[in-house]
């Protein structure tokens, strides 16, 4: 009943919108055909309005003030709707499922939703759009493009890349006479030494919420020698390596983490760190400004960034494209949408979003340009460069990824609470195997 209650209003809305949209789309068609008046030659899509749906994210904050430039240059109006990550996914899926959505361009998390959306045919393949030699698509890092390419379809242009890094409090480590942890054993020892619960200083903080924790747990899993499943698609959540990783992550948060960690995703964990209540914190490199910007953080001048610590298998962190810019296959303004995507991911604009807006992009030429790295702290750039060979996924590469995250994250939360995590991992492994089998 609920499904329908949600979908039915959309159907009605879509019917309304479809009725209204048709005459609006009509005038732009001849313009796109090149028959426009000569004066408008430079602006073949003038008058078109693009509907862009995206997330509340530093990239959105960086691109929004630049939209006026694009609008002035092309005459295309861009309406950017920004939503929370979960709401974004639901909005996109609901609108696309109902059909006839007028979304033209959207922000997408390739590892989270690209497989589902590609399976359902909601992507316009961008291969042709990015083939313009002036645009220089080859400039994008291969790994980043690999992440957004699903079954041969270029589902999106990479806009944000991230790696898992270690944030640490220089002053606390120094006061305790400790070096920056380079191994997971050192991390655990330092977390234990720096925890002073009476003063509300916690040695370690990270995500403890069931689903959000999975991506940040991944580097622990990889570095302990584990993975989500093996080459034969056999789930490996309960191997000795995986169990060691689950135990380590659970112990760190249970013994040295703040109270209430089970309800923490990154905004809550960042808040604890930025208020000065935590000494060590592992999370995505892309959220560093929350800790290093004096306006957002009380410990901005005392925070350092380091490469993810090494486990028995070495230091294996994730290194992924966390966001891509995609075009909806049902868009009625595909040429204009392509113009926008090319503009937003051009060298010039990436230099601005990355160099000034400090959003790590995927263009190699921008990273090579001193101006492209200027906005970032030196130790951050070093940590990110050291993560170049990290794994290209921070969650299992399956279609039902949300379900997989809940299954795996559920077992990790048992460890954080000090429960029987071995039984939970065995259970999770069986469920995850069933999910893997159902997708073959």
């Amino acid at each position, binding site marked *: 009943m609920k499904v329908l209650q949600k979908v039915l209003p959309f159907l009605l809305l879509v019917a309304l919108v479809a009725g209204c949209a048709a005459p609006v789309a009509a005038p732009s068609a001849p313009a796109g055909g090149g028959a426009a008046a000569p004066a408008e030659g430079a602006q073949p899509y003038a008058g078109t309005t693009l509907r862009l749906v995206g997330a509340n994210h530093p990239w959105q904050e960086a691109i929004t003030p630049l939209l006026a430039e694009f609008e002035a240059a092309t005459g295309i109006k861009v309406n950017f709707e920004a939503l929370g990550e979960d709401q974004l996914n639901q909005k996109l899926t609901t609108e696309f499922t109902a059909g006839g959505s007028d979304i033209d361009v959207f922000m997408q998390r390739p590892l989270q939703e690209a497989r589902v959306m590609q399976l359902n045919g909601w992507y316009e393949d961008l291969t042709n759009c990015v083939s313009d030699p002036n645009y220089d698509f080859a400039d994008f890092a291969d790994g980043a493009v690999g992440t957004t390419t699903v079954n041969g379809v270029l589902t999106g242009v990479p806009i944000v890349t991230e790696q898992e890094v270690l944030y640490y409090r220089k002053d606390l480590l120094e006061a305790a006479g400790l070096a920056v942890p380079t191994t997971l054993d050192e991390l655990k020892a330092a977390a234990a030494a720096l925890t002073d619960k009476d003063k509300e200083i916690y040695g370690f903080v990270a995500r403890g919420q069931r689903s959000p924790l999975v991506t940040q747990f991944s580097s622990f899993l990889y570095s302990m020698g584990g993975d989500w499943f093996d080459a034969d698609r056999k789930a490996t959540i309960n191997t000795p390596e995986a169990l060691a990783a689950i135990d380590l992550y659970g112990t760190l948060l249970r013994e040295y983490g703040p109270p*209430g960690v089970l309800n923490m995703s990154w905004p809550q964990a960042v808040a604890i760190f930025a208020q000065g209540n935590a000494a060590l914190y592992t999370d995505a490199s892309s959220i560093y400004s929350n800790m290093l910007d004096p306006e957002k953080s009380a410990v901005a001048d005392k925070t350092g960034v380091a490469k993810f610590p090494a486990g028995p298998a070495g230091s294996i962190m994730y290194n992924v494209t966390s966001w891509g810019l995609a075009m909806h296959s049902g868009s009625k303004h595909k040429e204009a949408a392509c113009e926008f995507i090319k503009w937003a991911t051009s060298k010039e604009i990436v230099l601005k979003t990355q160099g000034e807006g400090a959003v790590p992009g995927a263009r190699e030429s921008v990273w090579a340009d001193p101006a492209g790295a200027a906005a970032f702290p030196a130790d951050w750039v070093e940590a990110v460069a050291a993560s170049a060979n990290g794994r290209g996924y921070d969650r299992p590469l399956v279609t039902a990824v949300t379900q997989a995250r809940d299954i795996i994250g*559920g077992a990790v939360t048992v460890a954080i609470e000090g429960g029987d995590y071995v039984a939970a991992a065995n259970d999770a492994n069986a469920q995850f195997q069933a999910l893997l089998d159902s997708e073959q």
Partner: protein
Amino acid sequence: MITRFIDRHQRWLFPAPAVIFIVVMMIFPLGFTLWNSFSGWSLTAGRPNTFIGPQNYFDLLRDARFWNAVLNTFYFTALAMAVELALGVAMALLIDARDYPGKRIVTSLLLLPMMATPVAVAMVWLLMFEPTAGVINFVFGQLGLPKQLWIAGSSSVIPSLVLVDVWEWTPLITLIVLAGLAGLPSEPFEAARVDGASYGQTLWRVTLPMLLPTISVAGLLRFIDCIKTFDIIYGMTGGGPGFSSETLNIYTYNQAFYYFNFGYASALLVIFFTIVSGVSLLVAYSRRRLEV
């Protein structure tokens, strides 16, 4: 001509808008959900909306998360209803006990929690429950009481959510019971007084039995609301920590809008609907027996 048509078909035409509304907004969605529950419709598996028989229901019976959700739903509902009914009736008796200046104002103040938007309520309680920076633990600390995890602990999360529900919805019970009290005849009370009954005896043997139909209506309303509580749980825990506050409604929502298994979610809804209507019928039936 048209007038004559209307005159002749009056009994069809006048209820038509209501009938159409019910068909479009209730019967069709219900039927469609029922159909979906027998289909394998899933966006993540790429399966279309085709008939697969009762497979979803068989899968549900073996689904540990489903049973966990059933348990959580009834735990939450039972705890919330017990506290709300006891508190609500007690408050009504207290307010009704005698006349005093400002009685009306007290009754109006009772309405305030119910007028707040549930999601806003959830957000405020979320901040108050925060274990390190929240005001509740601060007060606990000042009073020398041990700090609690509240919604961040898997055993304390449901009682904490019940606390929020109690805060918001106990006044509803109080108001219904107050209305019931106002409608009671005065003769039985006079008779009890003449017979020398104490306050406790009057309450237990006269007031409460006569209020029972009212209380059962209030209870039924709260039952239906409690069992389908969504906003405060979604807003505060999303079913966590782990799965310890995942009720049937939250699980269904996850299946439908996070996993996109529409067929499976529909089967969950059909079971949910059966439970709610089953209990409602039971209460309605027992109420009729009570009144006879």
